[in-house]
């Protein structure tokens, strides 16, 4: 592996600014790595080599001309295939959008480009972000770089796997119920779900509008903070975008947690939690204690109901958000043989274009919203949402942050949970409450269990995202260093079968 790839995004950025590295060099190194390992990993759905190298050259020229650019100018990045970016297809991992070229950019993509980041390609994901393993992608499987037989998490599995296999130093994902944190957890990288509304959703294909938020993936807390600072900020195109600014995030890295109260969520542990996950979690808590924090147990009684409420609210919004894929304006059209009606063609297109999990959730949501069931299902779930928000409010009166394992288990074998939706859904047990309340949360790598990474979740109040980074920087373990050079690592370079 090219040694340049081991540099952090912050280091790459400062070297480019100082003239000791060019964006073209690092971008080329990334593409070389992608060509070397992605046949095994399957992280990228499409690459944009020519345009990326041209953009990198343009950044280099501006730097050479003496222009002062931002800290991530010239740094290569991969984006989840959920962000509209003109010139590349956006499929959201679904066959129904095969080949769709968006005629506009998402706001966050525009912000990446304005900050001089170099977009190298689009990353695989669960279809319409529905899944915890990236196996529901309509295109390909993505493999966990720690063990190619295992899932990379999901829905942003491509983002996590590309980082863990050193293909790019940064990736951009989205989190609706854990889609950034859980893949970060099972691949040993940092993943942040920022406060809802702090990053614009405009141009980001919607899964569940009241829960979705774009967020950064990186290999360390500082890089994630830098990326988050680039993409955040009010966007008038998104009515749910917050006007309030986030506190300084990169400033928070290194400030430590001395004198803090860290609350362990009592409900997230015990039955269903792998012993290896629990022991790694306890070790990390000890580390926080050594850094001067006090660890207390906090009960959030309604978190037990979060998964149930989520699986009503999310599919309800999904059933409506995905109605537009109707074969009229974009996407594929199936069965239009000149004899069939619009209604039949819509049915056939949606039947063939959507995968099983997407159909399952559309029908679940259609049921939850339908006349006669609304109050019992959707209405009740919204009340649970209020109760979860109240649990958080009460907890944050007592503690600075709440913590838990990111996911009850480490990565599982590909295929293992595909026919057991409930088992799959439980991977998001600990991550869902933060989406329901809109507050910020992140997953940081803390150790291994049976050779697979374990993630530590930190939850902070809305607009107090800086606290995530303070805890994250304390915990930081160079976990990925231990992957490089192992037999698992060598497997990435084998010829694809």
């Amino acid at each position, binding site marked *: 592996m090219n040694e340049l790839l081991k540099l952090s995004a912050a280091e790459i950025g400062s070297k480019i600014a100082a003239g000791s590295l060019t964006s073209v060099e690092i971008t080329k190194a990334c593409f070389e790595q992608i060509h070397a390992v992605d046949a095994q990993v399957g992280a990228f759905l499409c690459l944009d080599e020519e345009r990326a190298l041209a953009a990198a050259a343009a950044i280099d020229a501006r730097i050479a001309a003496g222009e002062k650019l931002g800290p991530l100018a010239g740094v290569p990045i991969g984006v989840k295939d959920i*962000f*509209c970016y003109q010139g590349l297809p*956006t499929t*959201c991992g679904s066959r129904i*959008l095969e080949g*769709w070229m*968006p*005629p*506009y950019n*998402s706001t966050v993509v525009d912000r990446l480009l304005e900050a001089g980041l170099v977009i190298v390609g689009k990353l695989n994901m669960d279809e319409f972000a529905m899944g915890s393993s990236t196996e529901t992608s309509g295109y390909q499987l993505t493999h966990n770089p720690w063990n190619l037989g295992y899932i990379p998490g999901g829905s942003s599995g491509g983002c996590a796997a590309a980082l863990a296999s050193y293909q790019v130093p940064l990736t951009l994902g989205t989190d609706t119920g854990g889609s950034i944190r859980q893949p970060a957890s099972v691949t040993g990288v940092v993943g942040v779900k920022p406060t809802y509304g702090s990053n614009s*959703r*405009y*141009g*980001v*294909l*919607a899964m*569940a*509008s*009241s829960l979705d938020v774009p967020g950064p993936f990186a290999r360390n807390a500082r890089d994630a903070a830098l990326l988050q600072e680039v993409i955040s900020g009010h966007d*008038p*195109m*998104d*009515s*749910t975008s917050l006007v309030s600014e986030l506190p300084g995030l990169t400033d928070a890295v290194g400030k430590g947690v001395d004198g803090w109260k860290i609350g362990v969520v009592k409900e997230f542990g015990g039955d269903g939690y792998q012993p290896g996950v629990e022991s790694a979690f306890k070790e990390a808590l000890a580390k926080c204690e050594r850094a001067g924090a006090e660890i207390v147990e906090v009960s959030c009684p309604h978190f037990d109901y979060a998964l149930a409420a989520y699986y009503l609210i999310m599919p*309800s*919004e999904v*059933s*409506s958000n995905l*109605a*537009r*894929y*109707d074969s*009229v*304006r*974009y996407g594929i059209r199936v069965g239009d043989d000149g004899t069939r009606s*619009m*209604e039949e063609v*819509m049915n056939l297109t949606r039947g063939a274009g959507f995968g099983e999990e997407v159909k399952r959730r559309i029908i679940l949501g*259609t049921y939850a*919203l*339908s*006349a006669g069931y*609304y109050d019992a299902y*959707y209405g009740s779930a919204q009340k649970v949402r209020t109760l979860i928000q109240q649990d958080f409010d009460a907890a944050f009166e007592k503690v600075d942050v709440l913590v838990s394992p990111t996911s009850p288990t480490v990565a599982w074998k590909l295929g293992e949970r595909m026919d057991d939706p409930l088992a799959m859904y439980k991977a998001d047990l600990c991550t869902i409450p933060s989406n329901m309340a809109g507050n910020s949360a992140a997953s940081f790598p803390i150790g291994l269990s049976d050779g697979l990474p374990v993630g530590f979740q930190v939850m902070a109040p809305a607009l107090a995202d800086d606290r995530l980074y303070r805890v994250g920087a304390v915990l930081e373990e160079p976990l990925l260093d231990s992957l490089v050079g192992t037999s698992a690592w060598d497997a990435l370079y084998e010829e694809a079968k």
Partner: protein
Amino acid sequence: MSELVSYDEAVAAFEPVLGLEVHTELNTKTKMFCGCQNSFGGEPNTHTCPVCLGLPGSLPSVNAKAIESAIRIGLALNCSIASWCRFARKNYFYPDMAKDYQISQYDEPLCFDGYLDVEVDGETYRVPIERAHMEEDAGKLTHVGGSGRIQGADYSLVDYNRAGTPLIEIVTKPVRGVGAKAPQVAKAYVAALRDILRSLGVSDVRMEQASLRCDANVSLMPWGSDELGTRTETKNVNSLRTVEAALTYEIRRQGAVLLSGGKVKQETRHWNENGYTLPGRSKEEAEDYRYFPEPDLVPVAPSREWVDQLRASLPEPPAQRRARLQGEWGLTDLEMRDILGADALELIAATVEAGAAPQAARKWWLGELNRLAKEADVELDAVGMSPVQVAELQALVDAGTLTDKLARQVIEGVVAGEGTPAEVVEKRGLKVVGGSALDDAVAAALEANPSAVESIKAGRQQAIGALIGAVMKSMKGQADAGQVRQLIMEKLG
């Protein structure tokens, strides 16, 4: 066509209960949820963007002006304004609906519990209003092949220029106690609503361009009963007269069904230009719209101060305005009733505003223009002559350039699209002629009618009519009869 009984027979047996849903397009510069231009027509799919095309990833953002207009409409309709309300998604699949859901309002309308007083034959009827809420319009479908209608078409084409146009839907509560006057009350209500919307300046309210659309519901129940009958909803009621005609028809049709012992079927019907309603193709089952709060938009919570400010800026209420204008114009109740009946109040007011005397304005709108509108089967305001043009015409009459008779020809010309009154006078050469040409014509007439001259000289003044007629004939009408009379008297002096 269905079996009918006479209207009198139907309303003798049953009390009609109305329900009216009026959709009006707002005339904001931009669409409801995006910055695309809000305008009628244009090359297909040129006033569109990711938002109104429902492209993946796009998000709506609310037009502030549309909210303001909606609140002003609500206030003008005596509604309460919600202190907090949300948009809701109405989910249904249809190719003209870009997102396959409509952003609308469900159980939390912005405006609710209002009323509108309307006058029919000198009596005032209060129409209770349930709600006025905001929503977006759909795109436009054209059907290709077959007869160009949806049924039997080979395929259809969609243009999303209209998609996302701001709409206000105004829904009445069941309107009871209007008896046989129901169709007239409905018409008067829609006319009054239109006048309010126009005076607020929030909508162009052109029914022929569908910027005001009405769905008319009616049911019949036996007199004295308290249980509402089964209603039908007639769509495509796109002029004031069809509101009245469609309801009259439905009352007669439902009356026939009920009197023959049948049951009225709850259904949507369509008004046919040939004067009857037909059932729409029924859907397989009742639609389940799965309404839920729009997660992409935040709630609307107008402050008391804002609402009070908008209330203070409202124009004069129509009833008050009518009374004031009647006084200012010096009209009798009967004259005023004729004006309202012909739906000419605002047209006359605008004509007076443009400089014409009230009686003159009234004369043209209720006379020649009303006749031409009826002939052409259009609403008076669509007759083809504007209030400004009528005032211009009257100015020509006042200046002696035109006689009333010539003015009627000018009106014909303007309505036929020949230009402004001045242009028509010019093109058709309709000016009143005076001077030596008239003197010559008078002299010629005296010479040619010696017996009439004798009679006048003998004191039989009525004989002058024949002389005037002869002069007017030779002048092809382009002379002022009063002036001709005067010239003759001078000559015979």
